């Protein structure tokens, strides 16, 4: 009996420690350890991190309770124990089972649902609010096997014009400003993933998708592809550089000057941009990937060229 008591105490202590550990991982752990999320460089990433860590606490607690329950049953109620004859279908039993399930549901799932609903509506999918922000930086992303093209509007503020800045696997943004991305794809579905910013969004041919983020730290971060997109999916990597606003401005101006010189109207393949989609616009741009409705004919020509080239 004594050993059982000791076992109970040990298991109880261990579960308490584990459960609180889930809540205690409050600070991002540097990427030298495998026991944490990667560094959070986003102004809004803490919402995701908090929800994940809070849920860790609940999940560990529930899992430990389940394991201890099973272990005790196996040890205590072994073949020497006389089994109860109990169908567990009395009103009392059913009320307890329903009650426990309801409590777990409202606390654990309720917490997830409540916070996620707030986070999604106020932040992650609230593109309308960001569109109104005068500091917002707008970038068009065209994904294709196996690279990311990025397009900045340039000084005229209009996309798909002569002064656009177009980069390959190199996205630069200013720290502290919201960055709006519109994503399309040329060939297959890709997914734009910023692990240090806790977000991702698919880029699919035939449609323009949206995402946004705001960097809180300067530095360089990985951009990954999370949708299987063919042989070199694993190499579809780009770099996100978060710069001080002045450095960003200088870079953009320099790039824009260079691009204006290099612009070639006839290079259809390079002029893949589209007119920026407003929040109320239909995001469906079928009829040519990454091509706006105005350029519908152009899209068909590209498609015809591509078909002819095959």
């Amino acid at each position, binding site marked *: 009996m004594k050993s059982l008591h000791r076992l109970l105490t040990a298991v109880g202590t261990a579960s308490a420690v584990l459960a609180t550990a889930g809540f205690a991982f409050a600070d991002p752990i540097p990427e030298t350890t495998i026991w944490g999320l990667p560094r959070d460089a986003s102004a809004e990433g803490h919402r995701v991190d908090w929800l*994940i860590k809070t849920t860790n606490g609940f999940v560990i607690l529930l899992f430990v309770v389940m394991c201890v329950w099973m272990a005790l049953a196996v040890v205590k109620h072994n073949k020497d124990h006389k089994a109860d004859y109990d169908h567990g279908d009395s009103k009392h039993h059913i009320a307890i089972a329903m009650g426990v399930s309801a409590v*777990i549901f409202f606390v654990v799932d309720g917490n997830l649902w409540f916070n996620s609903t707030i986070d999604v509506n106020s932040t992650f999918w609230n593109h309308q609010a960001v569109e109104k922000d005068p500091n917002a930086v707008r970038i068009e992303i065209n994904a294709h096997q196996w690279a990311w093209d990025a397009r900045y509007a340039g000084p005229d503020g209009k996309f798909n014009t002569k002064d656009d800045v177009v980069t390959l696997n190199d996205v630069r943004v200013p720290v502290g400003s919201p960055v709006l991305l519109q994503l399309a794809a040329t060939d297959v579905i890709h997914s734009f993933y910023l692990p240090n910013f806790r977000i991702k969004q698919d880029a699919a041919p035939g449609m323009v998708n949206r995402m946004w983020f705001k960097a809180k730290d300067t530095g360089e971060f990985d951009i990954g592809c999370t949708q*299987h997109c063919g042989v070199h999916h694993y190499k579809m990597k780009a770099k996100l550089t978060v710069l001080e606003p002045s450095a960003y401005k200088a870079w953009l101006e320099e790039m824009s000057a260079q691009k204006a010189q290099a612009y070639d109207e006839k290079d259809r393949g390079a002029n893949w941009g589209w007119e920026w989609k407003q929040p109320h616009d239909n995001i469906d741009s079928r009829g040519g990937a990454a091509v706006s409705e105005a350029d519908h004919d152009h899209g068909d020509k590209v498609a015809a060229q591509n078909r002819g080239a095959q």
Partner: protein
Amino acid sequence: MSDRVMTKADIEAAEHLQHAHVEPKDFISRYIFSIDHKYIGKQFLWAGLLFLLFGGLLAMLIRWQWAFPAQPVPVVGKSLFPQSGGAITPPAYNTLFTMHGLIMVFFAITPLMIGAFGNYTIPLLIGARDMAFPKLNMYSFWTFALSQCLVIASFFVELGSAAAGWTTYPPLSTNVGTPGNGQSLVVLALFVTGVASIMGAVNYITTVIRFRAPGMTWFRMPATVWGLWLTSILNLLFVPVLGSAGILLLFDRHFGTQFFVTGAAGGIGDPILFQHLFWIFGHPEVYILILPVWGFLIDFMSFFARKPAYWYKGSVYAMIAVSVLSAVVYGHHMFVSGMSPLLGQAFMLLTLVISVPAEILFLNWLHTMWKGSIRLTVPMLFALGTVFVFGLGGLTGIYLGTISTDLYLHDTMWVVGHFHLTMASAAFLGSFGALYFWFPKMYGRMTNETLGKVHFWFSVIGVTAVFCGQLLAGYNGQQRRLYDPFQYTYIQHLRDLNKYTSYFAFALGLGQLSFVVNFFYSIFAGKKADKNPWDVGTLEWTECESPPVYHNFDKVPIVLRGPHEYNNPDVLAKTGRDWVGQSEQLPGEEHGLDAIAAE
């Protein structure tokens, strides 16, 4: 549900409906094109185990690649990948993970759990002499065998087998991304295996509705039958959706249609439409693969804790609730596809609601064990292991059903770890538990208990370590399906994690040898099994020999009670046993036959 006394008409109707087939004497109709549900079950068992081995070996190669990217595979590398000096190439790797997924889901778990145990157990457990449509059952197996042949053939065509991921998303799965005929053969194989599943489903559903023995009311059915029956309903409803998606995809690939094709390659199709079709099927599919296991667990917990199943009706209602909900949650697979935010939030709420019936099931399993008299037999160990891994898998799923946490975890290794704990680990541990449980009935011999326990510990520790390793990699942000994950800076530090996860995977793979040895040894030289080695009360153990005769029951049994009557004080007093057969007439008990005799 009524406990009404049987009438003569009931019994005559049952005997008439379930005429006994004459056992065929010729080899072909007995052993090849058999219409006997028990033999077809065994055919599915062998076909499933063979492809389980196949899919498992593919997994070993994937794990090798993640531990030692692009290094030559020892022993088999030179013959499998001769052009690259034995190293796995990126295209080969894409085929490996694509075919590992498809083979395991459609050609290993499905035949094992639904084909083998569905066929073998349903008629025996409900007191039927065979399936409602024995010939359809035979066609179902041979259609399935054809689909396996198509899968094997796909490896031998130019450009190799499918490589677009098990989800087969277009445009990658159209000629734009995977031009080889291997991809077409595999999509065709999915269609054909779907036809086999539908034939099986029609059969199981009809058999359970029409062929229950007199007195076998819905809630006297073992939970195993409930699980398999609900699975069959989901199969019947949702496999056709996958079939339609597959046919449209084949049209796009070969007949110039553009249902899913758009982008620079031309076309005005919609690739997202395929995702809807795939997941309308795909989410019910994960419950298709787990409902039978839930049924096994409810029964095994009761059988081996020697206690009635706790709130049996609650468990059954929970399984029904999950089956219904499974149809309306699929959108959580598409949170980052560009889905309408309103729709996304509806899917999030519906997904989280599934927690409620799942909690009821867990509580009932745990309560059934509590205050029992637990026998740690090999099937019970596997059942306990299944609850353990399914608990882990279920709890790690709620992060993916929630939009904001899914934005980070979507398509990372977290997803891979989560669904391998649920639909892979729980499904396989559950199926192995079922195999150890019904093996004596199937082959008339006992399996070796020590080897069974070795197999259990290798399996449960193996799957836990491997898939928790994957969860951890995903928590760190590692994407799934990367040929070489260490291209990325932010997961450089996961090299050791991936390596150790692979070591556990290799141990898990090697540990399965204990099963192979046990299986073959026991079939030929195992200890002869008694009629009822587990002392349980369901019909296959109390009314049938081990193995049963061709027509199962000389007389269709008359069922008097539920499947979970253990340590019933009345039975103890009358018989001295802690169990009682479902059709066993206790002294002083009436089942209506006396009344009939008097007529």
